[in-house]
């Protein structure tokens, strides 16, 4: 991931969006290692994660990938082993490789579609009495 690409998904509730992204990436990579992007601390199991106030999550494919990222940093040999989720009040940004694998592309598309459900984003106008 040298350079990388930011994919921005508009959301209404960023904390819900980050929660969904974390749940989803656990399915993408069964041995995923999650880190708080601000503190660098490895996150506990989902049940114990405190999402309140969290703004960045790094998802490494597995512990070997996490170790390699720590050791050598961005390197072409690590393509496809890291997803970086960043939330701001109305957006979820997913930073991926410049040329993401098909698996990652499909994952991002699924995530985007999931976040388009009306529980996460709403474009509907308020209903008015006739």
């Amino acid at each position, binding site marked *: 991931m040298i350079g990388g690409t930011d994919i921005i998904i508009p959301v*209404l*509730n960023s*904390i*819900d969006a980050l*929660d*969904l992204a974390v*749940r*989803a990436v656990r*399915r*993408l990579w069964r041995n995923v290692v999650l880190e708080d992007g601000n503190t660098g601390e490895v996150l506990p*199991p*989902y*049940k114990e*994660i*405190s*999402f*309140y106030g969290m703004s960045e999550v790094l998802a490494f494919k597995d512990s070997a990938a996490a170790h390699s990222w720590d050791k050598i940093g961005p390197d072409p040999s690590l393509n496809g082993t890291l997803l970086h989720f960043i939330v701001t009040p109305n957006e979820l940004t997913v930073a991926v490789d410049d040329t993401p694998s098909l698996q990652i592309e*499909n*994952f991002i598309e*699924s*995530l985007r*579609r*999931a976040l388009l*459900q*009306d*529980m*996460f*984003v*709403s474009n*509907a106008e*308020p*209903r*008015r*009495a006739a």
Partner: protein
Amino acid sequence: MNRIERDPFEEVIRKSGADWLIDWYAPSDRAMENLRRILRDANEWGRQHWEGNAPPLTPEEIVNTYATNPHKVRAFLQVVGSIGSPSFLVMVWRILQGFDIQSVQLQYEIDKPFSLYIRLVSPYGMTEEYKSDNIDDAVVLRHLGTMKMSGQGTYDGFYALNIRSTD
């Protein structure tokens, strides 16, 4: 000087935007008592069925969870008044704790008994089954996150709906 003690559970309900749980209940001064009873029933169901593995489902637990994961409490409170069975409240709490939804089977035919079956699996592989013949419990389906993973449809997570007030 008299100090007004605020009920932390009520405060969390109001901060979560679920004031209507209190204000729409008739009589509204009994709303908190009713909500506590609903939680007590769910907690009791959990203790009877899952014994030592039962998730504590108490006002205190909800207040504590709000501090770290307010979005989960918001989602939970949106269904606490409308779910028909105590067991399904326990199920919702389990999903919020990270259980995966392994199976959903809904059976509906007009003028025939309704049936909803949901099987969850814990992060450690333990399964739990929830069954209902009460269509009020179908409210949970609206809150489940849906995704396609490897081409397969997946239910995952339990989320608050973006409820807008209507004029």
